[in-house]
C-alpha cells in the first residue's frame, strides 16, 4: 500500500519537475536560491560574528574594492564581502520565518473562513479585509517600534501585517474544494471538521501554498530590509542594517558606491530568485494560469 503511494508520489514529483524544468527563469532562480541558502548555512564554518566587530576590524576605512577586499570596506574598515555573507544569515532567517508565520496565520484563518459558513466565516473575512487595507509597512513599523527591535519582533511584525492576502487566497481555494461532491460524501460518512480540513482541503491547497510561500519570502526579505533601514533594527547585521549604516555614514556623499551597491544587489538577487521560482511554481501548479499563458 505505502509503496504504491510512494511510487505514485515519486511519479507526480518527476512529472512536476519535468514541467518546472521548462521554465528557464524559474530554474535560474532556483539555482541562485540554493546557492544563497547553502552559502548562508556554511558561513559559520569559515567566519563568525567577529566580521561585524568594529574593534577587530583592521582594514582601511571606506577602502574601494581591491584584490584584497573585492567589495571594499565600510566606515569602520570592515570587509563588505564578509559582512554581506554573514548578514545573509539574518536576512534569510527573518525572510523565511516571517513568511512561515504569515502563511500559517493565513492558512489557518483562510481554511477556517472557507470551511465554517455562517457568521463565523463572515466575521473572519471581515477581520481579514480590515487587515488587508491597513498600510502594511506603516503598521509593521509601529509594531516593531512598540515591541522593540529584536529579531523575533521583526518576524512577528512582518507576519502579522502580511497574512491577509494568503488568507483570501486559501479561503477561495477552500470554497472551491469543498464544493466538490466527494466532500459531501465524506460529510455524509461522518467526517468531522478536522477530518475534512486536514484530509481533503489541505492536500488540495498545498500546491498553491508552496507558490505563495515562495513569493511571500521574497516580500518578507524586502520588508525586513526596509524596516531595518528605517531604524526598526534587529541589531544584528543584515543587508538592511548595512544599508542603513551606509546612509547614516554618508556613503553616497563619500563616493563609497560599493557600500551601497553590494548589499542591495544581494537583496535584489535573492528576491528576484524567490520571485522567479514563485512565478514558475504558480505557472506549473495552477492549471488555470497555465491555460491562460
Amino acid at each position, binding site marked *: 500500500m505505502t509503496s504504491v503511494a510512494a511510487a505514485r508520489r515519486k511519479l507526480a514529483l518527476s512529472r512536476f519537475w519535468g514541467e518546472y524544468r521548462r521554465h528557464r527563469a524559474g530554474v535560474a532562480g532556483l539555482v541562485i536560491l540554493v546557492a544563497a541558502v547553502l552559502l548562508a548555512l556554511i558561513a559559520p564554518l569559515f567566519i563568525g560574528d567577529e566580521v561585524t566587530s568594529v574593534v577587530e576590524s583592521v582594514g582601511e576605512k571606506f577602502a574601494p574594492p581591491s584584490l584584497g577586499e573585492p567589495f571594499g570596506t565600510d566606515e569602520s574598515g570592515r570587509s563588505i564581502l564578509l559582512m554581506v555573507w554573514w548578514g545573509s544569515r539574518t536576512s534569510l532567517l527573518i525572510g523565511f520565518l516571517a513568511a512561515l508565520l504569515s502563511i500559517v496565520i493565513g492558512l489557518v484563518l483562510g481554511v477556517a473562513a472557507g470551511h465554517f459558513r455562517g457568521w463565523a466565516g463572515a466575521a473572519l473575512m471581515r477581520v481579514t479585509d480590515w487587515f488587508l487595507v*491597513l*498600510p502594511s509597512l506603516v503598521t509593521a*513599523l509601529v509594531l516593531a*517600534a512598540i515591541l522593540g527591535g529584536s529579531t523575533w519582533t521583526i518576524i512577528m511584525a512582518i507576519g502579522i501585517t502580511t497574512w491577509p492576502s494568503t488568507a483570501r487566497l486559501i479561503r477561495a481555494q477552500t470554497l472551491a474544494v469543498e464544493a466538490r461532491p466527494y466532500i459531501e460524501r465524506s460529510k455524509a460518512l461522518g467526517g468531522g471538521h478536522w477530518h475534512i480540513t486536514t484530509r481533503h482541503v489541505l492536500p488540495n491547497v498545498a500546491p498553491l501554498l508552496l507558490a505563495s510561500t515562495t513569493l511571500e519570502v521574497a516580500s518578507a526579505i524586502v520588508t525586513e530590509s526596509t524596516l531595518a533601514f*528605517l*531604524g526598526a533594527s534587529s541589531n544584528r547585521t543584515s543587508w538592511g542594517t548595512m544599508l542603513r549604516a551606509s546612509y547614516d555614514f554618508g556613503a553616497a556623499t563619500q563616493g563609497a558606491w560599493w557600500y551601497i551597491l553590494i548589499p542591495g544587489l544581494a537583496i535584489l538577487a535573492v528576491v528576484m530568485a524567490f520571485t522567479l521560482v514563485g512565478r514558475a511554481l504558480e505557472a506549473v501548479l495552477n492549471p488555470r494560469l497555465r491555460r491562460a499563458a
Partner: protein
Amino acid sequence: MTTPLETTEPAAAQAAAGAGDERPAWRGTLRYALAKAGGALFSIAMVIVGTFFLFRLLPGDPVRNMAQGRNMTPAQLDLERHRLGLDKSLIQQFFDFVGDTLRLDLGMSYEYKRPVLDLIGERLGPTLLLAGTGLVIAVSLGIWQGTRAGWRHGSRFDRFSTATSLLLWSVPTFWLGLLLMMVFGVGVGPIPGIFPFRGIESVDAPDGFAYVLDVASHMVLPCLTLVAVVYAQYLLVMRSSLVEEISQDYVTVARAKGLRDDEVRRRHAVPNALLPTVTLVFMRIGFVVGGAVTVETIYTWPGLGQLFYEAVSVPDFTLMQGTFMLITVAVIVMNTLADVAYHILDPRVRSA
C-alpha cells in the same frame, strides 16, 4: 414583426419593470455607497480601538519610556502621569482617548512639544504634492506601457516590460532611492550631481516662479524613486487585464464590424480593462503610502512620512499614534471611494 416575447423570461420581466424609470438603479448605487461607508466607519472605529490597545502594549512604564532614561524625580513622574491621564483606570483612559480622537485632539508631541494635529497639518501639503504627482505619473505610465505590452502580448516590447516590472518589483524602494541619490544627486566620479536631494527647497529659496522651479527640482529624485517602484505593478495589472479583455468575443465582434485595430483598442478593449485596473490602483494605495514613508525619509522630504519616521526613531509615541491613525484612516477612505467609484462607473457591477 416578430412577437415580443419578453415575458417568457423572468429576468426580462424584471428588467422591463425596472427600466421604465432610472430611479431604482440610482437607489441601488446609493444603498451600496451607504453600506460601504458604514463598513468604512466600522473599520475606522476598529483602527481607533486597535491603536489604543496597541500603544498600551508598550512594555514598561509609558512615562519612563517617553523620558528615555532622562533623570526625573518620582514627583515629576507622577505629575507627568497625571498630565497624561495615566493614573486613571484603563476603561476611563479608553473613553478619554476615543473622545479626544473624535474631537481630533491627538495629543502633544513629546519631541516637538506641539499638538500632533498641528504638526500633521504642516506636513500634509508636501506629502500630497509628492505622492499625488508620483501617483499620477506612475498610473499614466503604467497604463500606457501595460496597454502596449498587453495588446501585443508575447512581443519583444511585452517581454521587456514584464522583465523590467519584475526587476523593479524586487528592488527595495530605499535602495533604489539611495542609488538614484548617489548617481543623480551626489554624482559618480567625474559626473556631477544634477538634482538636489535634501528637503523640499533650497536654503536660499527664491520667490515667485523661480520658487516653483526650485521645489520641482527638489522633487525630481523622490518622485522618480516613488514612480519606479509603484508603476511596475500598475503595468502588470493593466497588461493582464487587457490580455483578458481581448480574448473576449466582443473584441472579435468589434473587429468584425470593420473597426480599425486602434479603434478596437481605444473604444472597446482599453476602457474595459481600465476599470478594474484603476480600482486596483486605489485599493493598493497602502503600498504607495509605504513607499512615500521610505522616500521621504531618504530625501528628508518634510512630509507626513518623514514625520512618522521621526516619531518611530525618537520614539515619540503620541506622534506615532496620531500619524498612524491618520494614515490608516486616509487609506481606508481612499479604498472606500475607489470601491464606490467602481460601482458607479462599471454597469456590470452596478446591477449586481
